[in-house]
């Protein structure tokens, strides 16, 4: 049962296509797991459709645009139109489809790197305006206290964590703004696996992680 959802601002920006790729990945992964947010997203897409449809006349295409488009269609059919399949749902996978596309498979394909304290991470390749990584936090382990320089989204994929504010289980997404200081602790049970995106580097308060920061690229 998912209790922590995406907010309007994120869903609307994803629908409008203005989120950085790293945040879009978290939104796409959450929507893959959450029917409530999928329905809300369809609502925001419908707003986009109404905005498009409501653009008044006044802009014309060049003469012959339809013919040029038909020629383009014919050329694409000759060459075989590039098919871009949407990720398919897969039962028993820990990672939702859009995430498997980035990783190149399910959990077994993740290339983890240790970041200290038993925590491991894998940074995923996205455009540079924000970053996103998978985190593997052993059950019962605390992630070092840190504050956020920007917006941070954390989606739980397996296990659960708890901080001073609430509990986050599979499918839940935590939205942390710059003023949030928290110490998430992975609950006992299966190790906690999260997808975390941020538009600023995390600043850990402990001296050891801070020292390690330039090397491990957090």
């Amino acid at each position: 049962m998912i209790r922590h959802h995406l907010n309007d601002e994120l869903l609307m920006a994803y629908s409008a296509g203005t989120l950085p790729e790293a945040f879009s990945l978290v939104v796409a992964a959450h929507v893959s797991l959450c029917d409530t947010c999928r329905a809300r997203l369809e609502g925001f897409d419908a707003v986009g459709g109404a905005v498009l449809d409501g653009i008044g006349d006044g802009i014309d295409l060049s003469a012959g645009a339809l013919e040029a488009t038909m020629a383009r269609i014919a050329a694409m059919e000759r060459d075989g139109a590039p098919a871009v399949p949407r990720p398919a749902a897969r039962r028993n996978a820990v990672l939702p489809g859009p995430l498997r596309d980035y990783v190149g498979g399910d959990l077994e394909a993740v290339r983890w790197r240790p970041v200290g304290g038993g925590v491991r991470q894998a940074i995923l390749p996205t455009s540079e305006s924000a970053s996103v990584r998978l985190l593997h936090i052993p059950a019962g382990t605390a992630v070092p206290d840190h504050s956020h320089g920007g917006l941070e989204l954390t989606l739980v994929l397996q296990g659960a964590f708890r901080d001073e504010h609430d509990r986050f289980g599979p499918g839940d997404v935590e939205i942390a703004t710059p003023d949030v200081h928290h110490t998430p602790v992975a609950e006992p049970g299966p190790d906690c696996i999260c997808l975390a995106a941020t538009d600023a580097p995390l600043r850990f308060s402990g001296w050891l992680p801070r020292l390690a920061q330039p090397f491990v690229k957090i």
Partner: protein
Amino acid sequence: MSEATERRAAWAAELKLVASSRDAAAFARLFSHFAPRVKAFLMKSGADAAMAEECAQDVMATVWHKAASFDPARASAATWIFTIARNRRIDMLRRERRPEPEDLTWGPEAEPDQEDALTMQQETERLSVAIASLPEKQRVLIERAYFGDLSHSEIAEATGLPLGTIKSRIRMALERLRHRMSQEGVRE
């Protein structure tokens, strides 16, 4: 059925004809309505006229090729074409990937339910009316958010409005839309 709802049903029917029988006349009717809107949408997003024209043609070619994946029970024609235009814009202006959610479809596509499709067209009509009747200041911000490669902070810079004002206006606009959409049996 209102005239606008009928028109929406017609767009859905044209898309079905394109999908089922590669109907060039149906496509031409879709083209004359949507291609100028897509071009205008891309220009409002910051593309110059030549690039917008090029991409609008590209978007319409994609409409032809993907017509079979249009589901009138899940989206209106305008919404479906908006998502294609938006994705093309991300590709064109930002040159980055757009991760998409998993598809819901399991196994072969069922024939879309006629009644669901009609409900979708009526809901779409109500949404359009609701957006058009928003207070001007709220409506403009909603439109800019969708045209945008404008983030909230860039809108703030362009309009001189504080970020908090923009966020609260958009929030009020969404509340108003939700309220309008949740009223049963709205007068047509």
